[in-house]
């Protein structure tokens, strides 16, 4: 078997449709047993990449290796890879049982073996009682489970999932995230799933690749992607961000970002992390939960914070477990802060004068311009 190499290795894959470059020089590794997400906005090339793994599209150049063997040119029906389709693509003229058994019959297994495996997998997704039903008589969530059962019953080396939860309503979607994760642990198959929903990717994936315009911008664990984005795109796409732009000024360990109105201090470590140098156009990214908000009238100190600014609270929103504040700074920029509900400032009203600020190490530095963004992509791809 593969031993220590990655399960799936995508190497410099390019795919064009006419003049459009759908996938532009993508390289990725997916490990054995991993739950891996391809995350990005629609049209970013994530689905094309998935379809190339399934064999429905052929790369113009590059390699796709499964346990070290090149899959390019291997027909879809000969790949040890199965896919769960966004539309589920259940065969409407067959019962649930026969939908699940379809792939096993193609393998010419004997009848008892097929029956045993179909029952086992239907039991696993909790649908054994509906085996005789036709797909049209099932609810959305049940169809999704049948599609999943049909895709895992052949015990593929990799399971591909194209927007697996997109067709479900919100409540079910959240439930199914955990369910999918449980199943993945149970069967131990590597899952590669495509989604445009960052929350879905963060909650389910062990690692995710963030894609935009045919390229992979960053690969990492959900925590890495959220806490240490390497590009402005990733910072904006995953979670909410406050962004301050300017040019980087490095004087020893004293690093600042000089903006139009004022300069902001950043940690030297933050500047080293993405390899930015003096004079580069950069952006500081502050997550709303790291932006602290202090009423000016409270007389509370702001010394713990490295960067502070004053402004006026213009909007508050109560979201149950937390509360959002929109503050317009004196220079006109708007920022968002977030606190846990039950915080002492719950009673702050709109129109209050406030100070906002953050601790030095909370400021994440990323390149601000587009070229740097793409260079950053090359950099993170190599990580």
């Amino acid at each position, binding site marked *: 078997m593969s031993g220590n190499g990655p399960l799936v290795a995508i190497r410099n894959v390019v795919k064009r449709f006419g003049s459009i470059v759908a996938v532009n020089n993508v390289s990725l590794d997916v490990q054995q047993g991993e739950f891996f997400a391809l995350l990005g906005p629609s049209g970013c090339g994530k689905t094309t990449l998935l379809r190339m793994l*399934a*064999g*429905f599209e052929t790369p113009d150049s590059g390699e796709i290796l499964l346990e070290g063997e090149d899959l390019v040119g291997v*027909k*879809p*029906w*000969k790949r040890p*890879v*199965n*896919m769960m*389709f*966004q*539309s589920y*693509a*259940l*065969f*409407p*003229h*067959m*019962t649930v049982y*026969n939908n699940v058994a*379809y*792939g096993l*019959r*193609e*393998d010419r297994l004997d009848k008892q073996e097929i029956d045993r495996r179909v029952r086992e997998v239907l039991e696993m997704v909790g649908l054994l009682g509906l085996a005789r039903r036709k797909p049209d008589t099932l609810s959305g969530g049940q169809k999704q489970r049948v599609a999943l059962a*049909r*895709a895992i019953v*052949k015990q593929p080396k990799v399971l591909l999932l194209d927007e697996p939860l997109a067709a479900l309503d919100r409540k079910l979607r959240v439930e199914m995230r955990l369910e999918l994760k449980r199943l993945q642990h149970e069967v131990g198959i590597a899952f590669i799933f495509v989604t445009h929903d960052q929350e879905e990717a963060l909650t389910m994936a062990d690692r995710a690749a963030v894609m935009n315009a045919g390229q992979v911008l960053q690969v990492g664990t959900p925590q890495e992607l959220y806490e240490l984005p390497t590009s402005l795109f990733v910072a904006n796409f995953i979670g909410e961000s406050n962004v301050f732009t300017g040019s980087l000024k490095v004087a020893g360990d004293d690093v600042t970002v000089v903006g139009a109105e004022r300069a902001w201090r950043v940690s030297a470590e933050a500047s080293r992390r993405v390899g930015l140098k003096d004079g580069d156009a950069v952006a500081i990214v502050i997550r709303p939960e790291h932006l602290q908000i202090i009423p000016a009238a409270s007389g509370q100190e702001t010394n713990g914070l490295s960067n502070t600014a004053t402004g006026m609270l213009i909007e508050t929103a109560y979201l149950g477990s937390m509360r959002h504040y929109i503050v317009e700074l004196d220079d006109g920029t708007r920022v968002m802060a977030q606190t846990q509900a039950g915080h002492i400032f719950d009673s702050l009203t709109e129109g209050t004068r406030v100070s906002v600020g953050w601790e030095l190490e909370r400021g994440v530095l990323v390149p601000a311009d587009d070229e740097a963004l793409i260079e950053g992509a090359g950099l993170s791809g190599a990580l």
Partner: protein
Amino acid sequence: MKKFTQQLVLLGPGLAWLVVFLVIPLVLILSYSFFRRGPYGGVVYEFTLKNYKQLFSPLVLRVFLTSLRIAVITTGLALLIGYPTAYAIATAAPQWRTTLLGLVALPFWTSYLIRTYAWIVLLNREGVINHFLMRLGIIHEPLGLLYNEFAIIIGLLYGYLPFMILPLYSSIERLNPELREAAADLGAPPLKTFFTVTLPLTLQGVIAGSIFVFVPSLGNFVVPELLGGGRRLMIGNLIQNRFLKARDWPSGAAMAFGVMSIVLILLLLQAWATNRLQEGGANAE
């Protein structure tokens, strides 16, 4: 009540049309079929089953069988040619589909009669095809392509092929392409995918197309008249002959109902078979 009035107004014109031009003539023809022929044509209103008994005479039976054979062969060929055509159009790039469908419907721009005459020009002993084959030295004697069953089938096939392609196209086009991909993904090579997924799920189109070709082929009298040469080759000619030449309306009416009952029986059989196929298709393997 208001809804009922509205529906009556909407359905009224179509309903009136059907009653005046279909139901009443059918009832008239049906009643004629149980009466006697008058000595100088016309109908003598005197009940008899003679007209139906005559359907089982060797001559009429033979014509019925020939007609059935021709209609079945025509339908089968139309299906064999029409399915790949419809499949190619339905899976072509969307910007091409309208053009290709337009080409399928193009023959409708000229009269059916003229197009049938054109086949005489193509098929006769001095016609284009014989001329061409002799020039190439493939044959030395002209082939007898015209005035036989072959010519009839060619003519019917040509005339009704679009009626096969169009319903097939719409049922293939409606099929979610991910279903074919799912079958391939689960290990089925293309032919297997076709027989286990594509064909069962487009059976409605196959049946609709087959009916649209079979029914008019069975009753056609223009093509056998022009391309078949023989007077009584198909049942349509026989019926036409009964009504117009022999002036035996009751006998023609009985034959017409004979054709109708064959068509009805076949439709019922087909509906039953489809039901079974769709129910049981899943368990087949």
